[in-house]
C-alpha cells in the first residue's frame, strides 16, 4: 500500500491541487454570485425590483384631473381631448405629490404649438396644420386660440 502511494505521488499531488482549486472555485462562486441569480432566468431577480423602484416624473392625466376641475371640463370633449396635460405642461409628478412646494411654470407657447401644427407634407392629411409664419406673423397662438379646447 505504502509503495502504491510512493509510486503514485506524482499523480496524487496534482490531483490534490486540482481538487483544492475546484473547491476554491465553488467557495468563491457561492460568495460572489448573488443569491437571487437564476431565480427567473440567467439574471439577478433583484434587478426587477430595483428598476421598478425608480421614481416617476409624469404623474399622468388621471392625477391632474383630481384637482383641476375647470381645466379638465374644458379639455374633455374638445379638439385637444387626446392631448394629456403633461404633454404641454411638462412632467409634474412632484407637483402632484406636493402642489404648493412645486409650482409648475406655464408652457413656452412660442415653442410648443408649432411642433404639432406646423405644415409638413409628412403629417397625416387630416391633421390640422398651418404655415405658422404666414398664419400669425410670430404672434403667439394663444392670443386667439384657447389651448385647452381650441376652436378653429
Amino acid at each position: 500500500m505504502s509503495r502504491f502511494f510512493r509510486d503514485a505521488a506524482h499523480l496524487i499531488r496534482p490531483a490534490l491541487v486540482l481538487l483544492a482549486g475546484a473547491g476554491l472555485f465553488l467557495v468563491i462562486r457561492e460568495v460572489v454570485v448573488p443569491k437571487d441569480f437564476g431565480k427567473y432566468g440567467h439574471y439577478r431577480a433583484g434587478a426587477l425590483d430595483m428598476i421598478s423602484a425608480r421614481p416617476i416624473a409624469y404623474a399622468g392625466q388621471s392625477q391632474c384631473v383630481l384637482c383641476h376641475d375647470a381645466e379638465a371640463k374644458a379639455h374633455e370633449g374638445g379638439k385637444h381631448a387626446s392631448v394629456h396635460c403633461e404633454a404641454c405642461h411638462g412632467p409634474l409628478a412632484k407637483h402632484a405629490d406636493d402642489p404648493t412646494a412645486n409650482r409648475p411654470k406655464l408652457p413656452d407657447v412660442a415653442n410648443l404649438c408649432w411642433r404639432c401644427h406646423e405644415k409638413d407634407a409628412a403629417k397625416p392629411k387630416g391633421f390640422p396644420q398651418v404655415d405658422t409664419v404666414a398664419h400669425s406673423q410670430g404672434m403667439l397662438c394663444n392670443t386667439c386660440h384657447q389651448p385647452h379646447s381650441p376652436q378653429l
Partner: protein
Amino acid sequence: MDLSRRDLFKIGGKLLVLASAGATLEEILGAAPPSEAYRRADHWWGMIIDIDKCIGCGSCVRACAQENHVPEGYFRTWVERYQVEEGKQPLVDSPKGAMNGFPPLQRQDVKSFFVPKLCNQCASSPCVQVCPVGATFVSPDGVVLVDETYCLGCRYCVQACPYGCRYLHPEKQTVDKCTLCYHRITKGLTTACCENCPTGARQLVDFKDPKDPVHEFLRNNKVEVLKPYMATGAKVYYKDLDGAVR
C-alpha cells in the same frame, strides 16, 4: 445498531417525504408574497404604433428623456421621417431624434411619413443572447431590461441589436435602453411616451390581458414588426408599415 434492509428503506422513505414536504412548505410560505397587486406572470407587455397618426411632434422623445434622465444626444425612443421616392433610396432624417420636432417638409411629390422607434421588446432578443454576464434579460412580463449593477459595458448587445436601440451611458459606462417605463407600468401607469403622445399614435399594450384593445387592433388591421426576417420576436407592432422602413 442493527439495521435491516427493510428498516433502511423505511427511514429513507420517511426522510424523503419530510424533505419534500419541507420544500413544498418553503415554496408556499418562504416565497416572498406579492408586495402589491402587480403580478409579473399576469402580463406580457408590448406596444402598437399607428404610423398614420404620428405627426412627428417629438413629444414622446422629450417625455422619455425627462422621465428616464436620458443623457443629451442619446435616445431611448426617437422619430424618423421617411421620404420615399420611386426608384431611389429612401431619405431618412431625425434631427436630434426629433427632440424638437422637425423642420417643415414642403415637398409634396414624394411619399413621406413619420416612424417612431423604440426598443421592440423582443421575446427572443439577440441582445440578451450575446450578454456574457446575464446583465440583460427578458423579464417574466416580457420587457428587455439591463441590470446596471451587473453590466460590464462590453457593448456586445449594442452591436447585436438589429434596431439600434441601445447605447453606452456616457457617465455610468453601462448599457442603457428603453425599459418600456418598467417603473411606471408596474405601478399601473402607462409609459411616458404613450402618456404624452397627443394623437394616440403609440399605445402600451398587454398581450396577456384579454380585455386589452390590442387583440381587436391586431384582428382588424394589417400590422408588421420591424425586420421580421430577423426572427427576434419583436412585440412592437406597426400599423401600415411601409416596406422602405428599416
